[in-house]
């Protein structure tokens, strides 16, 4: 089950990669633009594919090199049809030309995932062939080109994004969230590092909570507790916050899984399907269906949304990938839930887990409910990486070897363990 899931998820990347630019589609749906975060996941997944024999090393290196060459030459003018600015990239790019689409934002977090992917590929492709040498050079060049400090417009918290139409967005990285990789890379940059004020502004808004019997650093959606762990091995390393709490971020994610499961057992909004073996509220697609009366209230159903516990939004939609990504934290709970989702969720076995969402409360209930059509790149990426971390720890090993990450974590105050 695990092997089949991981391989099917890996195959998403070569399948939806544009042959000329190397950019990777955000979703498998027709007309999907590229997402720079998904490119980052693809670059991180190729080492796994090579190691598992699903793709030749040269072909994988060629995939990585193609997109990195393209991004190194793409328009960085910050104009409304460019691909980036100050080394950052717009969240969504036209697959064939790399131009910004849909007036999307220049994204600090999606750029961080992209750069992380480049550095992962550089860490893996360590041969002295011309291709792999160029790949490593490009990865460092593009990492060093990012002006991380520019994304601190007020000198403190890092901005979510910027638009040519309005400048920096009115949102910054505050409250525990998935920005661990962004802060580590930014602080570790040898050229344009984030100031320490960014991470201080972030951690000052952490909330250490006791909920359902568990002490943990609160964040509602499961992906927040998982995405940074796809690349960074947080076992045994701690910053000041976690030292004070006698915990670490890995253990914290274990507890977050337990809180998710506990919420679905309680199932306060009485959705079909929720129980001890069916949980996983996270960012993902949703049915966007007409509202209906459920358990004495009118329930609306969102499309793509960041769902979370215990405060929602919750419309009965489960993201299977978040359950897969829990394997490293709570293997017994995650495996038990995955087996249940394989048999109970709508669609073919496995496809429901890799789909961006399913909802047993809406759609054809006899078929198990609604299933998100197609696949989303972020889900496939987290599945490939977290299963590999569960099986061999390869992504973590690569992440540990990246100088920028080590330096950034140390600057953020992390000590202990492999640091």
């Amino acid at each position: 089950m695990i092997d089949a899931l991981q391989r099917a998820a890996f195959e998403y990347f070569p399948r939806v990669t544009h042959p000329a630019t190397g950019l990777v589609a955000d979703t498998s749906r027709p007309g999907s633009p590229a997402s720079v975060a998904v490119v980052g996941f693809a670059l991180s997944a190729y080492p796994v594919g090579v190691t598992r024999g699903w793709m030749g090393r040269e072909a994988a290196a060629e995939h990585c090199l193609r997109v990195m060459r393209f991004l190194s030459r793409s328009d960085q003018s910050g104009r409304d049809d460019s691909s980036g600015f100050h080394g950052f990239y717009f969240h969504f790019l036209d697959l064939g030309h790399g131009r910004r689409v849909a007036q999307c934002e220049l994204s600090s977090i999606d750029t961080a995932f992209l750069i992380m992917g480049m550095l992962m590929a550089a860490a893996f492709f360590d041969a002295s062939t011309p291709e792999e040498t160029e790949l490593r050079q490009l990865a460092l060049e593009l990492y060093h080109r990012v002006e991380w400090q520019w994304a601190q417009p007020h000198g403190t918290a890092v901005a979510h994004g910027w638009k040519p139409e309005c400048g920096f967005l009115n949102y910054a990285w505050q409250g525990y969230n998935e920005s661990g990789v962004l802060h580590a890379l930014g602080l570790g940059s040898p050229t344009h590092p984030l100031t320490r004020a960014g991470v201080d502004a972030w951690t000052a808004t952490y909330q250490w909570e006791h909920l359902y019997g568990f002490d943990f650093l609160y964040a509602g959606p499961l992906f927040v507790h998982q995405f940074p762990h796809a690349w960074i091995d947080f076992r045994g390393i701690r910053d000041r916050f976690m030292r004070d709490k006698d915990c670490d971020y890995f253990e914290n994610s274990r507890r977050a899984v337990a809180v998710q499961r506990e919420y679905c057992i309680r199932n306060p909004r009485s959705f079909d399907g929720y129980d001890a073996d069916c949980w996983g509220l996270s960012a993902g697609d949703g049915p966007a269906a007409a509202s209906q009366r459920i358990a004495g209230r009118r329930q609306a159903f969102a499309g793509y949304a960041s769902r979370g516990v215990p405060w929602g939004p919750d419309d009965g939609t489960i993201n299977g990938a978040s359950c897969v990504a829990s394997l490293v934290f709570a293997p017994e709970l995650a495996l038990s839930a995955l087996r249940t989702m394989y048999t109970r969720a709508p669609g073919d076995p496995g496809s429901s887990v890799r789909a961006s969402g399913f909802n047993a409360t809406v759609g054809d209930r006899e078929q198990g409910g609604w299933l998100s059509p197609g696949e989303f790149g972020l889900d496939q990426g987290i599945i490939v990486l977290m299963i590999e971390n569960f099986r061999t720890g390869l992504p973590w090993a690569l992440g540990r070897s990246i100088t920028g990450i080590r330096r950034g974590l140390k600057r953020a105050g992390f000590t202990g363990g492999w640091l």
Partner: protein
Amino acid sequence: MAVSSAERAKSNYEREYLENLCPTGWRNPAPQSRYDLLILGAGPDGIVAAREAVALGARVALIERHRLGGGSLNYGCIPSKALLRTARLYAEMRHAENFGGVSPARIPFDWPAAMMRLQRIRARISRTASASGLSREGIALFFGNARFISPDAVAVDGVTLRFKNALIATGSGPLLPGIPGLAEVGFLTSETVFDLPELPESLLVIGGGPLGCELAQAFARLGTRTVIAHSEPLFLPQEERDAAQMVSDALARDGVEIHLNSKAVKARAEGKMKAVDLLRDGQSMTTTVDEILTGIGRMPAIQGLQLELAGIDYDAERGIHVDDFLRTRNPRIYAAGDVCLEHRFTNTAAASARIVVRNALRRGRERLSTLTIPWCTYTDPEIAHVGLYVQEASERRIPVKTFTIPMHDIDRAIADSEDTGFVKIHLREGSDHILGATVVARNAGEMINTVSLAMATRIGLVALSKVMHAYPTQGSAIQRAAEAYVRSRRPSRLAAWWQSRQI
């Protein structure tokens, strides 16, 4: 045309209310040589101070420019809460199925009836702070515009009043947004919204603070197509994110069209309607409505006081500068309430006025910073808070741990179909000392008082866990949080083992 009995009743309520708070033909008393305490402003703080001072045997003058009772009674808390209750009734009628009932097929709305109720309530409450009543209590009550003429004297419409001590309690007024075209098309504020002759078909609320959120939800529930525009990413920027998000969700459920992170940049008339351009992340859209309500905040009422002549420091945003004893730079002049405080709440105004009376007349040394101040935003669900927020504690390097009880774990909340919300009690980690709390619940404003009591009397969560609460009540969520704390105090190795067994 014959006057209906309803209109007669309405005008009687209005007459009683005005007669109590701003009597026609009122004659100011002859001034005494010098007052022990002269108070500018007869809002909740001014009236409390006057009564407390008279009870101490002081000679007290109280000066009011407009109506007794201040913004709270005349334009703020009381009228808005009266309207919110009517709105809640309509929401419940519409959603009767949620409670096992049947919604009426047609729910007509009667704005004059709602306004008559509001006026009846206002008239009733005005009896407790009437001009004649205050005079009978021994307070020298003056109506008129007051201004300082020296460090120890004010003039009220040409009459000089001298004082040993003075208290400035002039309150605050609505902060008006500088949006081009808004003044030309006309807009409502918290002071004029209750004068509407009829329920508007559509309304744009500018500002997602407490007032904006409360009234947006109320008007939506009454049947007005309501749009709210707020310049920040979340409503109620000072509140916890989860709490603010719950308000946003609640407003959306009630049908409010929400525009967060959106600035109103221009207004213009389009026929009988008002068009307002909203700008979000560089993208512009226009909303067209019958009425516009601004609720972006309040500013201290200091205009015309001639504070310079009394040697008082101030600025337009913070108002009058005071120290922790509420004293201005002029040692005989104090300030209280909205005119000088960050927390512009009626309860805080009254509490600060009491401090002033004790400090000014009894040589007290009471500090503002020792107050435990709870507050509440009366949306549905309500958001109530007391003490520190987690971020404030973190910034002061105080280690914090939060005990969280979702309302969906509380039997009474489930039975009431009101299980949206939470109780969060923030502790100094490693102790049961309460730093603060936030409650989101249907009656959060009532529930927070238990935590305020505990904080003011320095009761920790261990003691609170032993206070038996009536069952079933929503307030028992506080006790549940206390019990969770007591359970978590197990020896750490045992607790760790127990947690690991759960995963």
